[in-house]
């Protein structure tokens, strides 16, 4: 009984995580300017990652794999948002203004952000 419950719960988490990644992808394509787009894309490596990894951890049970999944999740949760921050910061420094209100795309010359 409890096995079935855990299985169902983990699948719910996995599907929710998948939906988050999908929303992030659609947002990255559809949203009007750079900052809103990376806002959408950052959904994939925070919410999407947490949901999918917790789902997979529930699937694997109490094994070594769970520990490894947890380590990978921790790594992704540390690096993903940092990368998003660095990207946004680089864009800001290279002169791309977060323009609220209008919905035009960025047209400035892009600097190769490191």
């Amino acid at each position, binding site marked *: 009984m409890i096995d079935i419950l855990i299985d169902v719960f983990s699948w719910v988490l996995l599907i929710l995580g998948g939906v988050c990644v999908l929303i992030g992808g659609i947002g990255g394509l559809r949203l009007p300017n750079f900052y809103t787009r990376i806002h959408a894309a950052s959904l994939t490596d925070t919410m999407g990652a947490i949901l999918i990894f917790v789902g997979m951890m529930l699937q694997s049970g109490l094994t070594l794999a769970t520990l490894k999944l947890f380590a990978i999740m921790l790594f992704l949760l540390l690096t993903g948002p940092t990368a998003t921050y660095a990207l946004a910061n680089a864009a800001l420094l290279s002169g791309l203004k977060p323009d609220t209100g209008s919905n035009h795309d960025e047209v400035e010359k892009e600097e*190769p952000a490191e």
Partner: protein
Amino acid sequence: MIFVFAIFLLSLLVITSIAIVRTTNLFVAVMLTSIFSFLMAANFFILDAADVALTEAAVGAGVTTVIFLCALALTGEREKPRINGRKTARVAVAILASLMIYATFDKPRLGDPDAPVHQHIAPWYIEKTTEHMDFPNVVTAILSSFRGYDTLGEVFVVFAACIGVLFILGVPPPAQKRLNKVVEQNKGLRHHLIPQVVGRLVIPFIVLFGLYTQFHGEYGPGGGFQAGAIIATGIILYALLEGENKALQAVPRSVLLGMVIGGALLFGSVGVICMFMGGNFLEYSVLSADPIWGQQLGILVIEAGVGMAVCGALLSIFHAFAARENVS
């Protein structure tokens, strides 16, 4: 299920490569090459080639991208418009591509157990690995012992590539040397607290993972090449976050060069020692009274040499590019 996933990945590969060809922005092309490498790594992983996948992810997607970006910082971001020569190139590529596709018709099906490659020497390797080395990773056994000559050659290729890059980029232009001091103060992401803190947290683990890959190569996927690339990635990350000077303080140029030369030398000298002890070149069995332990010892030492050489070479190349950036 895995078949569908493989098809999906392969079609993504084709799409990415077409995008690489079509884009004129070199920065985009570099990012797409990185994506291409990641897809390729996933593909290798599906084909159960975890060692190759690890190498592809670390070298192809990690270090190469950084070195490409360093090179782009020196050149321009846009591709130069080319007028002539396009047609001949296209015809040549079309002919070559159709020849290659034609050649694949003679290939056995993917994973066909009757394919010559699975009949000829692979069973012998799988059989003899436990007998001679007594560890489970056949790939490491083939790479470092059965085909040790090839790996020695690869290490010398890495060595030669590093020397070549240093010959071209290693000498700083004399006139602008004094400018370095001024520029270097605002190098790196020093004023960005978040990446720096996270980097300090993550870099030790990256290096630790590299060492694990190095010394666990006999039992799991890994080995010198992957370990060298992973450790180099960690140190490059340090250089990006704290500034190149600090990275050079931590691992100076002389140490890097010593690693490249020492690694290649270590590999070669193990072979020579084998000869002195009465065996053939790179025949590790003679290194110890117990031939199995001799093999394991030899593999451990030459993997260390490979790791040192790869790590030193990648870092030297990175520093050679980064030093140019300060000057120009």
